[in-house]
C-alpha cells in the first residue's frame, strides 16, 4: 500500500489511523469517526463481495452517507479492487520511495487541469483509431 498511503497522509490520515484501519478491530477504534468506520466497513465488504448479501452491514453504512456518497464510496472501492488486480496480475514492481514522494500532495484536483487535458485531446484528435484485434501476434 506504499503508493496509496502517501496521498492518504497528505490528506491528513495519521499513522495511527492507518494502523486502526488495517486492524480487525477498526469498528471500535477511537481514532476513526463513525462515518470513517462506515466507509472502511463498506470497503471491506465490497472487496470480499459480501456487501451483496449483508443487509445488516448495508444498514450501518447507509445511515452515515447520502445516496450520492454511498455510490462514490462503493465506486472507490471497486476502482481500487481493479487497480489491485491489475498490479498483482502483471507483477508491477513497487516504486522507489523517492518516486512515491513525488505524488502530487495536493488532495484537490484543479478542474482546469482536467479541462486543459480534454482541450489537448480535442486539439490532437487522432485521424485513425486502432483496429480491434489488429495487433494479433504473427
Amino acid at each position, binding site marked *: 500500500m506504499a503508493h496509496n498511503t502517501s496521498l492518504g497522509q497528505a490528506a491528513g490520515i495519521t499513522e495511527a489511523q492507518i494502523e486502526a*484501519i488495517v486492524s480487525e478491530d477498526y469498528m471500535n477504534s477511537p481514532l476513526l469517526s463513525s*462515518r470513517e468506520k462506515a466507509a472502511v466497513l463498506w470497503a471491506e465488504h465490497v472487496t470480499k463481495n459480501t456487501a451483496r448479501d449483508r443487509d445488516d452491514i448495508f444498514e450501518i453504512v447507509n445511515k452515515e452517507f447520502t445516496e450520492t456518497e454511498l455510490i462514490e464510496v462503493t465506486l472507490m472501492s471497486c476502482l481500487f479492487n481493479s487497480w489491485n488486480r491489475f498490479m498483482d496480475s502483471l507483477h508491477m514492481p513497487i516504486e522507489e520511495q523517492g518516486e512515491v514522494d513525488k505524488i502530487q500532495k495536493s488532495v484537490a*484536483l*484543479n478542474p482546469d487541469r482536467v479541462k*486543459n487535458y480534454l482541450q489537448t*485531446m480535442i486539439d490532437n484528435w487522432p485521424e485513425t483509431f486502432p483496429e480491434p484485434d489488429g495487433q494479433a501476434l504473427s
Partner: protein
Amino acid sequence: MPRVSQIGLDEAQGETARLYEATTQMLGRVPHSFRVLGQTPLVARMLLLFNATMQREGAGSVLSCKLKEMVIIKTSQVNACNY
C-alpha cells in the same frame, strides 16, 4: 519480475507523451501503472481523468480525499496488495 514492459518518460511520443504530461500535471508524476498503460494511450487517457477525479477532490467528486483514501487503504489491505 514484471510481466509487461513500461514505456519510459524519455521514449514516450505522441499520444503517450501527452498522457505522461497530463499524468504529471494531475498526479505529480507518472507511476508505473501509467507507464504500462502508456502502451494503450487512447484508453489510458480516459482512465487518467476518471482515476484522478475519483481519487482527489474538487473536480466533481462529492467525497473528501481523506475518506476515499481510507477506503483505498482497507481495500488494498483486504486484497493483500502491496502496491
